[in-house]
């Protein structure tokens, strides 16, 4: 198709330089893909959770629970609610932590069990029946479809349920559909209320009442009325409120996801910038010609932007397709990491539009500087023999470095300040965004500093390279310095990805390390009895607790009960401990707390974790208020306990009796055992195994096993984020390929001369690869240093407010990052090296 207009030149250029175009598009595709993938995942999670929660708690208008959000109360309240004017119907339910046992007692799946009344079952929960019916009486169970399939159960089969009293057999009478496929990774079941009350030892107890209002418009009025009539020990909430609260917890996770997606995009933009700069460089004489012929600066700049726009559009469209695949992958990884399976993706037009717009905008922005550079090519360039290489970086590294230092000086403390505040109070989206801005500013600053570092770092690597690679190594280092700006730009992109990996590893490693140190320091126990998989807190009946405590070889045993209270936006983790707790857990009090503080728990006192004390500004002698089924209670604070193992610095400790009296929580959820010094540990484990045979939902762990499990849980969740960061690093590796190609092009003549005087193809190829290695090593080294510093900031910041997180240096990730520099350099250098090695000598020498 014949050229009809000046703007057609842009399209022609894209088509003519296919490989370059492809390389540039890859940056856009990967960046957009990640953003779309993450946005889709985010939306899917959000929607699934929303649907899940809104359905779980019923299609009701209001929910009545004990004050503080949870806890068992007397079913007499149900009648009272029913008799209130304005109430159409009321459905009681008793929510319990049960377990689904199948596979011949080998498999255990945690289950949320609702005890319900048959007449009001449909109101008690909003999940839909797909087959069968709701339980009507006796020992019947309606189960979620997914779990039924896992267990290989069909209607009419017998289901084994784990309860505090031992296994119970029920008949499966119905199947439910749960949005997202599972109840937070767990099973969901409904059984008749009398059965639930008996099996879980809660006679006459219910934990919630779903209320349907007569008048849809008067729901708020009804809520206030019920709140008032039922009194202090109760609260009535609109269903939306509960759903919203659950959704808020997702917020920080989603923002973290977006942050990482943002870095992938950032790096993708670098790639586009790099590639376009390269194109402008290659076409210097052509551009000079166009200027000589009468094209204005604006025209030339616009043509570059136009090229970028076309690339952006294509790249974004392809990116969305790639992102769809990415979203599927992320959802799968997420499911594996958090044991929460999401079965279907929610494709929102918002995510689609955002990803495409962002892709196009970022590409065009990345093109601005190269476009301006293109416009500035003087017409005289058309006649120069050598392509110009001067760039802003070359001219004034000191000015740039100064700006860089200023940015780092601003960004680093900003990040620290935010990390510090992040852990004191739940912060809103704007605070997180601000934190991210702080990190971005820091990165930008470091990127501007890198040009000044190129020479010294290359000099550092030079001897190492010449050791392994001989004279080519030295030449390669010199070449990297020759075009400092380009080397710096490429290294920066790599630096961002690597430093995030290292920083994140530092944070994760430190948190994990600190938890393990805590455990080592404060755990006097040798064994613990706890749920055998991640799930809800499983209750241990007093009889079982006694049996375990009286096992031969057990010197001390203590049980811990817990409850979670919600008061508006404030959540409190409350633990009930018995008098043997200090013997097993060796409390470590803060200064100002008396050694006998624990004794005051008997009188209704409380011990609190340090972070909680700071957040709520309470100290020894102050009172702490909690809401429960018996009303609002206050407890004098007897002391601050530094090694708050269960609440991780935000726990509240009361005596078990207090918990039972005020919150109706009687059973332990966790047992810790201390063995006698001469006890046979193996024998204890065997005996426990025998006792717990009827309770597959519980298991005995040795200290080492418990710590190992915490570690693997942690790692599992981290893998997910590493996947996203890995893509950033991959994208920046492409940047290295681009840079090397540019380098090869610029030095065509030089390479020709080298070959003419006897340098072999292999040597030329190695030269290019070595240059790639130098650039990558620079990027990785700076990345490791920056990442370590950033990680340190994160850790110090998050620890400053409470939970003492010691800094554990991520040695292995850091070393891996450094070595990856080698690997990336070689891998990225292969193609350019090949093309350099294949240079036609005669053509190259004549190249003007």
């Amino acid at each position, binding site marked *: 198709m014949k*050229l009809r207009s000046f703007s057609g030149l842009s399209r022609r250029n894209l088509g*003519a330089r296919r490989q370059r175009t492809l390389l540039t598009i890859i940056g856009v595709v990967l960046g957009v893909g990640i953003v779309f993938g993450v946005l889709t995942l985010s939306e899917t999670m959000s929607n699934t959770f929303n649907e899940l929660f809104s359905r779980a708690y019923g299609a009701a208008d209001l929910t009545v629970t004990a004050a503080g959000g949870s806890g068992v109360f007397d079913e007499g309240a149900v009648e009272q609610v029913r008799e209130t004017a304005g109430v159409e119907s009321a459905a009681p339910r008793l929510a319990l932590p049960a377990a689904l046992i199948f596979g011949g007692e080998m498999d255990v799946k945690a289950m949320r069990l609702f005890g319900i009344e048959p007449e009001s079952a449909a109101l008690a929960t909003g999940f839909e029946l797909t087959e069968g019916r709701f339980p009507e009486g006796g020992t019947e169970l309606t189960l979620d479809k997914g779990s039924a399939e896992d267990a290989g159960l069909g209607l009419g089969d017998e289901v084994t349920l784990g309860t505090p009293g031992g296994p119970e057999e029920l008949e499966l009478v119905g199947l439910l559909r749960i949005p997202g496929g599972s109840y937070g990774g767990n099973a969901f079941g409904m059984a008749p209320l009398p059965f639930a009350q008996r099996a879980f030892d809660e006679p006459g107890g219910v934990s919630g009442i779903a209320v349907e209002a007569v008048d849809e418009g008067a729901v708020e009025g009804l809520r206030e009325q019920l709140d008032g009539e039922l009194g202090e020990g109760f609260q009535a909430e609109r269903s939306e409120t509960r759903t919203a609260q659950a959704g808020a917890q997702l917020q920080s996770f989603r923002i973290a996801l977006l942050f990482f997606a943002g870095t992938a995009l950032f790096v993708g933009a670098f790639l586009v910038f790099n590639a376009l700069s390269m194109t402008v460089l290659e076409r210097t004489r052509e551009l000079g010609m166009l200027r000589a*012929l009468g094209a204005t*600066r604006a025209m030339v700049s616009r043509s570059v932007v136009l090229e970028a726009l076309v690339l952006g559009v294509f790249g974004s469209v392809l990116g969305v397709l790639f992102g769809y695949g990415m979203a599927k992958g992320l959802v799968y990884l997420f499911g594996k990491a958090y044991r929460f399976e999401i079965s279907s993706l929610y494709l929102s037009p918002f995510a689609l539009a955002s990803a495409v717009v962002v892709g196009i905008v970022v590409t065009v922005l990345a093109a601005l500087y190269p476009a301006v550079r293109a416009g500035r090519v003087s017409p005289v360039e058309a006649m120069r023999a050598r392509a110009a290489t001067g760039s802003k970086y070359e001219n004034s590294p000191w000015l740039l470095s100064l700006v860089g230092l200023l940015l780092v000086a601003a960004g680093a403390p900003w990040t620290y300040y935010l990390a510090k505040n992040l852990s004191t109070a739940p912060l809103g989206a704007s605070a997180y965004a601000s934190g991210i801005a702080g990190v971005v500013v820091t990165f930008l600053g470091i990127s501007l500093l890198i040009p000044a570092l190129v020479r010294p770092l290359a000099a550092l690597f030079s001897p190492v390279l010449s050791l392994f690679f001989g004279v080519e190594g030295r030449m390669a280092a010199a070449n990297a310095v020759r075009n400092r700006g380009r080397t710096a730009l490429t290294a920066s992109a790599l630096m961002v990805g690597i430093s995030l990996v290292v920083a994140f590893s530092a944070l994760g490693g430190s948190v994990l390390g600190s938890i393990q140190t805590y455990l080592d320091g404060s755990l006097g126990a040798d064994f613990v009895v706890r749920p055998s998989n991640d799930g809800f807190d499983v209750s241990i009946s007093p009889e079982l607790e006694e049996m375990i405590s009286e096992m031969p070889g057990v010197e001390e045993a203590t049980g811990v009960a817990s409850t979670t209270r919600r008061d508006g936006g404030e959540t409190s983790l409350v633990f009930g401990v018995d008098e043997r707790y200090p013997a097993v857990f060796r409390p470590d009090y803060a200064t100002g707390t008396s050694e006998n503080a624990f004794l005051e728990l008997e009188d209704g006192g409380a011990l609190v974790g340090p972070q909680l004390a700071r957040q709520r500004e309470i100290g020894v002698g102050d009172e702490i208020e909690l809401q429960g089924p018996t009303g609002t209670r206050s407890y004098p604070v007897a002391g601050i306990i530094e090694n708050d193992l269960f609440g991780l610095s935000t726990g509240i400790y009361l005596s078990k009796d207090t918990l039972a009296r005020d919150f109706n929580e009687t059973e332990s959820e966790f047992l810790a055992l201390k063995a006698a010094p001469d006890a046979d540990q193996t024998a204890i484990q065997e005996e426990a195994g025998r006792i717990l045979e009827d309770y597959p939902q519980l298991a005995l762990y040795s200290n080492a096993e418990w710590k190992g499990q915490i570690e693997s849980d942690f790692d599992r969740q981290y893998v997910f984020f590493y996947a996203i960061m890995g893509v950033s690093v991959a994208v920046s590796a492409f940047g290295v390929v681009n840079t090397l190609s540019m380098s090869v092009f610029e030095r065509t003549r030089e390479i020709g001369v080298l070959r003419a005087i006897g340098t072999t193809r292999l040597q030329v190829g190695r030269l290019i690869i070595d240059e790639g290695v130098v650039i990558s090593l620079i990027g990785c080294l700076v990345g490791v240093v920056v990442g370590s510093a950033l990680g340190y900031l994160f850790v110090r910041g998050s620890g400053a407010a409470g939970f003492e997180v010691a800094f554990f240096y991520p040695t292995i990730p850091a070393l891996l990052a450094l070595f990856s520099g080698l690997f990336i350099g070689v891998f990225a250098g292969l193609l350019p090296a090949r093309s350099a090695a294949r240079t036609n000598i005669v053509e190259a020498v004549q190249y003007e």
Partner: protein
Amino acid sequence: MRAGDEVVRVEDLEKVYGSGPTAVRALKGISLEFRAGEFAAIMGPSGSGKSTLLHVLGALEEPSAGRVVVGGTNLSGLKDRELTLLRRARMGFVFQFFNLIPTLTAEENVMLPVLISGVKAAKYEERLDELLALVGLEKRRGHRPDELSGGEQQRVAIARALIRRPDVILADEPTGNLDSKTGAGVLQLLGTSATRYDQTVVMVTHDARAAAVANRVIFLADGRVVGEALDPDEDEILERIKTLESAG
């Protein structure tokens, strides 16, 4: 533009590159006039400043001192955009190498100045055919530069330089890379532009034979004009050069 009218004039032109002890003074005070219908050749040894002079004449570079007047317009003080538009309207360029955009065909390259001006290509279709015939490349019009010989590329460049009928055509060593036969053809085309269309052609060359085709030869040495000859033949030119070289 009628034959004899003044088209380009430079007064006390100076051009310095760099500053301080490493400064290079390429032009040290040149005053010249070029008229319509003139075919001028600028000769001199390397380092004489002839290419620089051409750049300044073509508004490709600004002088350090002195005036450049094109068609009555003083170029000093004009902004880049205005200079660009002036080049677009009044100048045609033929460079020694790398004249053409590699991704465009021969005819598209010729049409480039038109496209840059934003004028519809259709309006110039006839002129395009005329020029392609003039340079003898109708059969090669759809070929890309890498498919054309050096001489063919130069001819495309000339056609491009002519398409908008500029007042001035500036050529930098147009025959430098060509064999004598092809070179003669190129020079003939340039000559025709001057005589037939009253355009001004200024050509920088080191080739005495090429300069002999011109009707005015200007000798440059060390940044200054050191001599002129009107309608010289080849021998005269070679004599002059020898004299200059022994003197300098």
